Protein backbone atom coordinates (compact mmCIF):
# COMPACT_ATOMS: atom_id res chain seq x y z
CA UNK A 1 0.00 0.00 0.00
CA UNK A 2 1.25 3.46 -0.80
CA UNK A 3 1.77 5.89 2.03
CA UNK A 4 1.30 9.58 1.56
CA UNK A 5 4.30 11.81 1.88
CA UNK A 6 4.55 14.01 4.92
CA UNK A 7 5.73 17.03 3.01
CA UNK A 8 3.42 17.59 0.10
CA UNK A 9 5.23 20.75 -0.85
CA UNK A 10 8.52 18.92 -1.16
CA UNK A 11 11.41 19.25 1.22
CA UNK A 12 14.80 20.79 0.79
CA UNK A 13 16.80 20.16 -2.34
CA UNK A 14 19.63 17.68 -1.89
CA UNK A 15 22.45 16.62 -4.19
CA UNK A 16 24.31 13.30 -4.53
CA UNK A 17 26.29 12.43 -1.43
CA UNK A 18 24.46 14.70 0.98
CA UNK A 19 23.45 13.30 4.34
CA UNK A 20 19.74 12.56 4.69
CA UNK A 21 19.70 10.95 8.12
CA UNK A 22 21.11 8.19 10.24
CA UNK A 23 20.19 4.54 10.64
CA UNK A 24 16.82 5.46 12.15
CA UNK A 25 15.62 5.95 8.57
CA UNK A 26 15.23 3.52 5.71
CA UNK A 27 16.75 4.36 2.34
CA UNK A 28 14.12 4.65 -0.36
CA UNK A 29 14.25 5.77 -3.97
CA UNK A 30 17.11 8.06 -4.79
CA UNK A 31 18.87 7.32 -1.51
CA UNK A 32 21.30 4.69 -0.29
CA UNK A 33 22.60 3.42 3.04
CA UNK A 34 26.24 4.11 3.79
CA UNK A 35 27.17 2.45 7.06
CA UNK A 36 25.04 4.20 9.64
CA UNK A 37 24.06 7.08 7.38
CA UNK A 38 21.57 7.52 4.59
CA UNK A 39 22.77 9.61 1.67
CA UNK A 40 21.18 10.96 -1.49
CA UNK A 41 22.16 9.49 -4.84
CA UNK A 42 20.36 11.94 -7.12
CA UNK A 43 19.47 15.61 -7.11
CA UNK A 44 15.97 16.37 -5.94
CA UNK A 45 13.66 17.06 -3.05
CA UNK A 46 13.97 15.17 0.19
CA UNK A 47 10.76 13.46 1.29
CA UNK A 48 9.91 11.48 4.39
CA UNK A 49 7.41 8.64 4.06
CA UNK A 50 5.92 7.32 7.31
CA UNK A 51 5.95 3.54 7.79
CA UNK A 52 2.87 1.61 6.61
CA UNK A 53 0.47 0.84 9.46
CA UNK A 54 0.98 -2.59 10.94
CA UNK A 55 4.46 -3.18 9.61
CA UNK A 56 7.07 -4.62 11.90
CA UNK A 57 9.66 -2.03 10.98
CA UNK A 58 8.53 1.30 12.36
CA UNK A 59 11.22 3.38 10.69
CA UNK A 60 10.27 6.04 8.21
CA UNK A 61 11.55 5.91 4.66
CA UNK A 62 13.48 8.83 3.27
CA UNK A 63 13.54 9.23 -0.49
CA UNK A 64 14.63 11.79 -3.03
CA UNK A 65 12.23 12.79 -5.78
CA UNK A 66 14.35 13.68 -8.78
CA UNK A 67 13.59 16.87 -10.60
CA UNK A 68 14.88 15.40 -13.82
CA UNK A 69 15.26 11.65 -13.70
CA UNK A 70 17.16 10.16 -16.57
CA UNK A 71 15.34 8.64 -19.50
CA UNK A 72 13.16 5.61 -18.96
CA UNK A 73 14.94 2.26 -18.89
CA UNK A 74 13.09 -1.06 -19.19
CA UNK A 75 13.02 -3.03 -15.96
CA UNK A 76 11.68 -6.55 -15.38
CA UNK A 77 7.99 -6.11 -14.67
CA UNK A 78 7.56 -2.93 -16.69
CA UNK A 79 4.78 -2.67 -19.24
CA UNK A 80 6.21 -1.32 -22.48
CA UNK A 81 4.93 -0.19 -25.84
CA UNK A 82 7.03 -1.54 -28.68
CA UNK A 83 7.00 -1.61 -32.45
CA UNK A 84 7.56 -4.97 -34.11
CA UNK A 85 10.50 -4.78 -36.48
CA UNK A 86 11.04 -8.38 -37.58
CA UNK A 87 9.01 -11.57 -37.36
CA UNK A 88 10.71 -14.96 -37.49
CA UNK A 89 9.51 -18.52 -37.00
CA UNK A 90 10.28 -18.64 -33.30
CA UNK A 91 10.48 -15.02 -32.20
CA UNK A 92 9.67 -11.44 -33.08
CA UNK A 93 11.97 -8.46 -32.71
CA UNK A 94 10.58 -5.18 -31.43
CA UNK A 95 11.86 -1.70 -30.63
CA UNK A 96 10.76 -0.50 -27.20
CA UNK A 97 9.37 3.02 -27.47
CA UNK A 98 7.66 3.64 -24.11
CA UNK A 99 8.27 2.26 -20.64
CA UNK A 100 5.11 2.43 -18.53
CA UNK A 101 3.94 5.92 -19.49
CA UNK A 102 7.32 7.47 -20.28
CA UNK A 103 8.92 7.60 -23.70
CA UNK A 104 12.48 6.36 -24.00
CA UNK A 105 15.03 8.73 -25.43
CA UNK A 106 16.74 6.06 -27.48
CA UNK A 107 15.29 2.76 -28.51
CA UNK A 108 15.88 -0.49 -26.68
CA UNK A 109 15.62 -3.80 -28.50
CA UNK A 110 13.08 -6.31 -27.24
CA UNK A 111 12.25 -9.85 -28.26
CA UNK A 112 9.00 -11.79 -28.03
CA UNK A 113 9.68 -15.49 -28.04
CA UNK A 114 7.24 -18.08 -29.33
CA UNK A 115 6.48 -19.40 -25.86
CA UNK A 116 5.67 -15.91 -24.56
CA UNK A 117 3.04 -14.92 -27.13
CA UNK A 118 -0.02 -16.29 -25.34
CA UNK A 119 -0.86 -18.32 -22.28
CA UNK A 120 -2.88 -21.02 -24.05
CA UNK A 121 -1.86 -23.56 -26.70
CA UNK A 122 1.76 -22.49 -26.46
CA UNK A 123 2.89 -25.32 -28.72
CA UNK A 124 0.65 -24.24 -31.58
CA UNK A 125 1.66 -20.58 -31.75
CA UNK A 126 2.30 -19.34 -35.27
CA UNK A 127 4.41 -16.19 -35.10
CA UNK A 128 3.27 -14.94 -38.49
CA UNK A 129 -0.36 -15.09 -37.40
CA UNK A 130 0.40 -13.17 -34.19
CA UNK A 131 2.46 -10.19 -35.32
CA UNK A 132 3.47 -8.31 -38.43
CA UNK A 133 6.31 -5.83 -38.85
CA UNK A 134 5.10 -2.37 -37.98
CA UNK A 135 2.55 -3.47 -35.39
CA UNK A 136 2.43 -1.58 -32.11
CA UNK A 137 2.28 -4.01 -29.20
CA UNK A 138 1.88 -3.68 -25.48
CA UNK A 139 4.12 -6.16 -23.68
CA UNK A 140 5.51 -7.02 -20.29
CA UNK A 141 9.27 -7.10 -19.70
CA UNK A 142 10.04 -10.61 -18.47
CA UNK A 143 13.74 -10.20 -17.89
CA UNK A 144 16.81 -8.36 -19.03
CA UNK A 145 17.26 -11.13 -21.59
CA UNK A 146 20.59 -11.47 -23.29
CA UNK A 147 23.12 -9.09 -24.75
CA UNK A 148 20.92 -8.29 -27.71
CA UNK A 149 17.38 -7.83 -26.42
CA UNK A 150 15.04 -7.70 -23.48
CA UNK A 151 12.63 -10.63 -23.23
CA UNK A 152 9.04 -9.46 -23.63
CA UNK A 153 5.81 -11.33 -23.07
CA UNK A 154 2.26 -10.79 -24.31
CA UNK A 155 0.79 -13.81 -22.52
CA UNK A 156 -1.96 -11.83 -20.83
CA UNK A 157 -5.31 -10.54 -22.00
CA UNK A 158 -4.32 -6.90 -21.79
CA UNK A 159 -1.12 -7.45 -23.76
CA UNK A 160 -0.72 -7.82 -27.48
CA UNK A 161 -1.22 -5.78 -30.60
CA UNK A 162 -2.85 -2.42 -29.90
CA UNK A 163 -2.44 -0.80 -33.32
CA UNK A 164 -1.76 -2.27 -36.72
CA UNK A 165 -2.16 -1.64 -40.41
CA UNK A 166 -3.36 -4.08 -43.00
CA UNK A 167 -1.51 -5.16 -46.10
CA UNK A 168 -3.44 -2.63 -48.15
CA UNK A 169 -2.58 0.16 -45.73
CA UNK A 170 -5.85 0.59 -43.90
CA UNK A 171 -6.22 0.68 -40.15
CA UNK A 172 -7.06 -2.64 -38.54
CA UNK A 173 -9.88 -2.73 -35.98
CA UNK A 174 -9.90 -5.49 -33.34
CA UNK A 175 -12.87 -7.84 -33.58
CA UNK A 176 -11.68 -10.63 -31.29
CA UNK A 177 -8.57 -11.55 -29.39
CA UNK A 178 -7.16 -13.29 -32.44
CA UNK A 179 -8.57 -11.29 -35.35
CA UNK A 180 -8.52 -7.76 -36.70
CA UNK A 181 -10.49 -6.36 -39.61
CA UNK A 182 -9.39 -3.79 -42.16
CA UNK A 183 -11.43 -0.61 -42.23
CA UNK A 184 -11.12 -0.17 -45.96
CA UNK A 185 -11.42 -3.62 -47.46
CA UNK A 186 -12.99 -5.68 -44.68
CA UNK A 187 -10.16 -8.16 -44.93
CA UNK A 188 -9.66 -10.13 -41.72
CA UNK A 189 -6.10 -10.67 -40.48
CA UNK A 190 -4.80 -12.78 -37.61
CA UNK A 191 -3.13 -11.04 -34.66
CA UNK A 192 -2.61 -11.55 -30.96
CA UNK A 193 -4.86 -8.68 -29.97
CA UNK A 194 -4.71 -6.83 -26.67
CA UNK A 195 -7.90 -6.53 -24.70
CA UNK A 196 -9.23 -3.01 -25.03
CA UNK A 197 -9.74 -1.21 -21.72
Amino acid at each position, binding site marked *: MAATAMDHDGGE*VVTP*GELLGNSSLLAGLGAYADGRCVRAS*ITGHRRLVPPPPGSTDQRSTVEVVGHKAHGAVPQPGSVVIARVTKVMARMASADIMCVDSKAVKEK*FTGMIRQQDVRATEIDKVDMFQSYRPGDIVRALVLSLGDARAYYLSTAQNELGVVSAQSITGGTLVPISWTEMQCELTGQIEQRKVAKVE
Partner: protein
Amino acid sequence: MSAAATAGTYSPASAAGEKRRERKEELRRHLAEDADWPRADGRSFHDCRPAFMQTGPTTAASGSAYAEFGKTKVIVSVFGPRESKKAMLYSDTGRLNCNVSYTTFATPIRGQGTDNKEYSAMLHKALEGAVMLHTFPKTTVDVFALVLESGGSDLPIIISCASLALADAGIMMYDLVTSVSVSCFGKNIIIDPTSDEEAWQDGSLMVAYMPARKEITQLTLTGEWSDGKITNAVELCMDACSKLCDILRERLKDASSLAE
Protein backbone atom coordinates in the same frame (compact mmCIF):
# COMPACT_ATOMS: atom_id res chain seq x y z
CA MET B 1 17.35 23.19 -18.68
CA SER B 2 19.88 25.92 -18.08
CA ALA B 3 20.50 27.69 -14.79
CA ALA B 4 20.90 31.43 -14.52
CA ALA B 5 24.51 32.53 -14.36
CA THR B 6 25.46 34.42 -11.22
CA ALA B 7 29.08 35.47 -10.87
CA GLY B 8 30.89 36.34 -14.05
CA THR B 9 34.31 34.97 -14.75
CA TYR B 10 37.34 37.14 -15.25
CA SER B 11 39.13 37.05 -18.55
CA PRO B 12 42.67 38.36 -18.55
CA ALA B 13 43.64 40.79 -21.26
CA SER B 14 45.11 39.05 -24.25
CA ALA B 15 48.85 39.21 -23.92
CA ALA B 16 51.03 40.26 -26.78
CA GLY B 17 54.12 38.29 -27.64
CA GLU B 18 56.29 40.83 -25.90
CA LYS B 19 54.22 40.71 -22.72
CA ARG B 20 54.20 36.95 -22.80
CA ARG B 21 57.96 36.80 -23.08
CA GLU B 22 58.34 39.25 -20.23
CA ARG B 23 55.99 37.23 -18.10
CA LYS B 24 57.90 34.04 -18.75
CA GLU B 25 61.19 35.65 -17.83
CA GLU B 26 59.64 37.06 -14.68
CA LEU B 27 58.29 33.63 -13.83
CA ARG B 28 61.68 32.06 -14.37
CA ARG B 29 63.28 34.66 -12.15
CA HIS B 30 60.71 34.09 -9.43
CA LEU B 31 61.27 30.36 -9.53
CA ALA B 32 64.83 30.84 -8.38
CA GLU B 33 63.68 32.56 -5.20
CA ASP B 34 61.98 30.51 -2.49
CA ALA B 35 59.40 33.03 -1.42
CA ASP B 36 55.69 33.63 -1.67
CA TRP B 37 55.42 35.82 -4.72
CA PRO B 38 52.29 36.80 -6.61
CA ARG B 39 51.70 34.67 -9.66
CA ALA B 40 51.44 36.03 -13.20
CA ASP B 41 47.68 36.46 -12.84
CA GLY B 42 47.91 37.93 -9.36
CA ARG B 43 46.99 34.86 -7.36
CA SER B 44 48.85 33.66 -4.31
CA PHE B 45 50.15 30.12 -4.05
CA HIS B 46 46.98 28.57 -2.69
CA ASP B 47 44.38 30.50 -4.68
CA CYS B 48 42.33 28.80 -7.36
CA ARG B 49 41.24 30.61 -10.47
CA PRO B 50 37.73 32.08 -10.63
CA ALA B 51 35.25 29.31 -11.40
CA PHE B 52 32.08 29.52 -13.45
CA MET B 53 29.86 26.47 -13.84
CA GLN B 54 26.49 25.99 -15.45
CA THR B 55 24.21 23.03 -16.09
CA GLY B 56 22.19 22.26 -19.16
CA PRO B 57 23.99 23.94 -22.08
CA THR B 58 23.43 20.96 -24.40
CA THR B 59 19.71 20.42 -24.88
CA ALA B 60 20.02 17.17 -26.83
CA ALA B 61 21.91 15.44 -24.03
CA SER B 62 20.38 13.84 -20.95
CA GLY B 63 22.63 16.05 -18.87
CA SER B 64 25.34 18.55 -19.60
CA ALA B 65 27.53 21.09 -17.90
CA TYR B 66 29.86 23.91 -18.85
CA ALA B 67 32.81 25.04 -16.77
CA GLU B 68 35.33 27.86 -16.95
CA PHE B 69 38.37 28.13 -14.74
CA GLY B 70 40.34 31.15 -15.80
CA LYS B 71 41.11 30.53 -19.44
CA THR B 72 40.20 26.84 -19.48
CA LYS B 73 36.75 26.19 -20.95
CA VAL B 74 35.16 22.73 -20.92
CA ILE B 75 31.75 21.42 -21.95
CA VAL B 76 30.56 17.92 -21.01
CA SER B 77 27.52 16.06 -22.34
CA VAL B 78 26.04 12.89 -20.86
CA PHE B 79 23.85 10.53 -22.88
CA GLY B 80 21.93 7.59 -21.53
CA PRO B 81 21.33 5.23 -19.97
CA ARG B 82 20.91 3.88 -23.45
CA GLU B 83 21.28 0.58 -25.21
CA SER B 84 24.76 -0.87 -25.40
CA LYS B 85 26.18 -1.65 -28.79
CA LYS B 86 25.53 -5.17 -30.02
CA ALA B 87 29.20 -6.01 -30.01
CA MET B 88 29.37 -5.69 -26.24
CA LEU B 89 28.77 -8.69 -24.04
CA TYR B 90 25.92 -8.88 -21.57
CA SER B 91 26.69 -7.13 -18.33
CA ASP B 92 24.78 -7.21 -15.06
CA THR B 93 26.05 -3.74 -14.26
CA GLY B 94 25.93 -0.69 -16.43
CA ARG B 95 28.81 0.64 -18.45
CA LEU B 96 30.40 4.04 -18.34
CA ASN B 97 32.11 5.27 -21.50
CA CYS B 98 34.20 8.43 -21.40
CA ASN B 99 35.64 10.41 -24.27
CA VAL B 100 37.75 13.54 -23.97
CA SER B 101 38.56 15.57 -27.05
CA TYR B 102 40.06 18.95 -27.83
CA THR B 103 38.82 21.38 -30.43
CA THR B 104 41.24 22.48 -33.11
CA PHE B 105 41.33 25.97 -31.63
CA ALA B 106 41.76 24.87 -28.01
CA THR B 107 45.52 25.34 -27.87
CA PRO B 108 47.66 28.31 -28.91
CA ILE B 109 49.05 26.18 -31.74
CA ARG B 110 46.17 25.00 -33.90
CA GLY B 111 45.94 21.25 -33.59
CA GLN B 112 43.97 18.52 -35.25
CA GLY B 113 41.29 18.28 -32.60
CA THR B 114 42.33 14.82 -31.55
CA ASP B 115 40.68 12.59 -29.01
CA ASN B 116 42.80 12.31 -25.92
CA LYS B 117 42.84 8.63 -24.97
CA GLU B 118 44.92 9.09 -21.85
CA TYR B 119 42.57 11.72 -20.46
CA SER B 120 39.58 9.57 -21.41
CA ALA B 121 40.94 6.65 -19.40
CA MET B 122 41.73 8.89 -16.44
CA LEU B 123 38.29 10.48 -16.54
CA HIS B 124 36.68 7.05 -16.60
CA LYS B 125 38.73 5.91 -13.62
CA ALA B 126 37.83 9.01 -11.66
CA LEU B 127 34.10 8.69 -12.31
CA GLU B 128 33.46 4.96 -12.11
CA GLY B 129 34.07 4.92 -8.38
CA ALA B 130 31.25 7.41 -7.86
CA VAL B 131 28.58 6.22 -10.29
CA MET B 132 26.15 3.51 -9.17
CA LEU B 133 26.63 1.20 -12.13
CA HIS B 134 24.31 -1.44 -10.72
CA THR B 135 21.29 0.85 -11.09
CA PHE B 136 21.21 0.60 -14.89
CA PRO B 137 22.05 -2.99 -15.84
CA LYS B 138 22.77 -3.86 -19.45
CA THR B 139 22.78 -0.23 -20.54
CA THR B 140 25.48 2.34 -21.17
CA VAL B 141 26.07 5.90 -20.06
CA ASP B 142 28.26 7.91 -22.42
CA VAL B 143 30.19 10.96 -21.24
CA PHE B 144 31.61 13.28 -23.88
CA ALA B 145 33.96 16.03 -22.76
CA LEU B 146 35.06 18.75 -25.15
CA VAL B 147 37.80 21.21 -24.26
CA LEU B 148 37.00 24.49 -25.95
CA GLU B 149 40.06 26.30 -24.63
CA SER B 150 43.05 24.83 -22.85
CA GLY B 151 44.47 27.11 -20.20
CA GLY B 152 46.07 24.67 -17.80
CA SER B 153 44.75 22.09 -15.32
CA ASP B 154 42.43 20.74 -18.00
CA LEU B 155 41.82 17.26 -16.62
CA PRO B 156 40.70 18.28 -13.09
CA ILE B 157 38.20 20.68 -14.62
CA ILE B 158 36.95 17.98 -16.99
CA ILE B 159 36.38 15.63 -14.05
CA SER B 160 34.50 18.19 -11.97
CA CYS B 161 32.41 19.25 -14.95
CA ALA B 162 31.61 15.64 -15.87
CA SER B 163 30.45 14.98 -12.33
CA LEU B 164 28.13 17.97 -12.54
CA ALA B 165 26.79 16.74 -15.89
CA LEU B 166 26.13 13.24 -14.54
CA ALA B 167 24.19 14.67 -11.61
CA ASP B 168 22.26 16.88 -14.03
CA ALA B 169 21.37 13.78 -16.07
CA GLY B 170 19.88 12.09 -13.03
CA ILE B 171 22.42 9.28 -12.96
CA MET B 172 22.59 7.79 -9.47
CA MET B 173 25.88 8.57 -7.77
CA TYR B 174 27.44 7.94 -4.39
CA ASP B 175 28.77 11.48 -4.30
CA LEU B 176 29.86 14.28 -6.55
CA VAL B 177 33.47 14.04 -7.69
CA THR B 178 35.61 17.14 -7.71
CA SER B 179 39.20 17.37 -8.76
CA VAL B 180 42.05 19.80 -8.28
CA SER B 181 45.71 19.67 -9.22
CA VAL B 182 48.83 21.29 -7.80
CA SER B 183 52.28 21.97 -9.18
CA CYS B 184 55.60 21.73 -7.39
CA PHE B 185 58.26 24.43 -7.77
CA GLY B 186 61.33 23.78 -5.67
CA LYS B 187 60.03 23.98 -2.13
CA ASN B 188 56.74 25.61 -3.07
CA ILE B 189 53.36 24.15 -3.95
CA ILE B 190 50.97 26.14 -6.09
CA ILE B 191 47.40 25.12 -6.72
CA ASP B 192 45.41 25.12 -9.95
CA PRO B 193 48.36 25.87 -12.25
CA THR B 194 48.00 27.63 -15.58
CA SER B 195 49.60 26.45 -18.80
CA ASP B 196 52.67 28.61 -18.28
CA GLU B 197 53.13 27.30 -14.76
CA GLU B 198 52.63 23.72 -15.88
CA ALA B 199 55.38 24.17 -18.45
CA TRP B 200 57.93 24.97 -15.76
CA GLN B 201 56.84 22.72 -12.90
CA ASP B 202 59.10 20.19 -11.18
CA GLY B 203 56.18 17.87 -10.52
CA SER B 204 52.41 17.77 -10.44
CA LEU B 205 49.77 16.01 -8.40
CA MET B 206 46.08 15.60 -9.18
CA VAL B 207 43.43 14.38 -6.76
CA ALA B 208 39.86 13.37 -7.64
CA TYR B 209 37.90 13.36 -4.42
CA MET B 210 34.39 12.63 -3.12
CA PRO B 211 34.09 15.23 -0.35
CA ALA B 212 30.96 13.97 1.45
CA ARG B 213 32.35 10.46 1.77
CA LYS B 214 35.97 11.60 2.18
CA GLU B 215 37.21 9.15 -0.42
CA ILE B 216 39.73 9.64 -3.22
CA THR B 217 38.80 8.10 -6.56
CA GLN B 218 42.03 8.96 -8.33
CA LEU B 219 45.52 10.17 -7.52
CA THR B 220 48.03 11.04 -10.21
CA LEU B 221 51.61 11.97 -9.44
CA THR B 222 54.36 13.08 -11.80
CA GLY B 223 57.84 14.46 -11.31
CA GLU B 224 59.87 14.65 -8.12
CA TRP B 225 58.25 14.87 -4.70
CA SER B 226 59.34 14.29 -1.14
CA ASP B 227 57.04 12.32 1.14
CA GLY B 228 56.15 15.19 3.41
CA LYS B 229 55.30 17.43 0.52
CA ILE B 230 53.01 14.84 -1.03
CA THR B 231 50.98 14.69 2.17
CA ASN B 232 50.71 18.46 2.30
CA ALA B 233 49.74 18.63 -1.35
CA VAL B 234 47.06 15.95 -0.99
CA GLU B 235 45.53 17.72 1.98
CA LEU B 236 45.59 21.00 0.11
CA CYS B 237 43.83 19.35 -2.83
CA MET B 238 41.19 17.73 -0.65
CA ASP B 239 40.42 21.05 0.99
CA ALA B 240 40.08 22.74 -2.38
CA CYS B 241 37.91 19.88 -3.65
CA SER B 242 35.53 20.31 -0.73
CA LYS B 243 35.15 24.00 -1.49
CA LEU B 244 34.63 23.28 -5.18
CA CYS B 245 31.99 20.68 -4.31
CA ASP B 246 30.03 23.34 -2.44
CA ILE B 247 29.95 25.35 -5.66
CA LEU B 248 28.72 22.33 -7.60
CA ARG B 249 25.96 21.65 -5.08
CA GLU B 250 24.81 25.25 -5.21
CA ARG B 251 24.68 25.06 -8.99
CA LEU B 252 22.63 21.86 -8.92
CA LYS B 253 20.20 23.24 -6.37
CA ASP B 254 19.68 26.37 -8.44
CA ALA B 255 18.91 24.25 -11.48
CA SER B 256 16.64 22.01 -9.44
CA SER B 257 14.67 24.92 -7.99
CA LEU B 258 14.21 26.54 -11.38
CA ALA B 259 12.77 23.30 -12.74
CA GLU B 260 9.81 23.36 -10.33
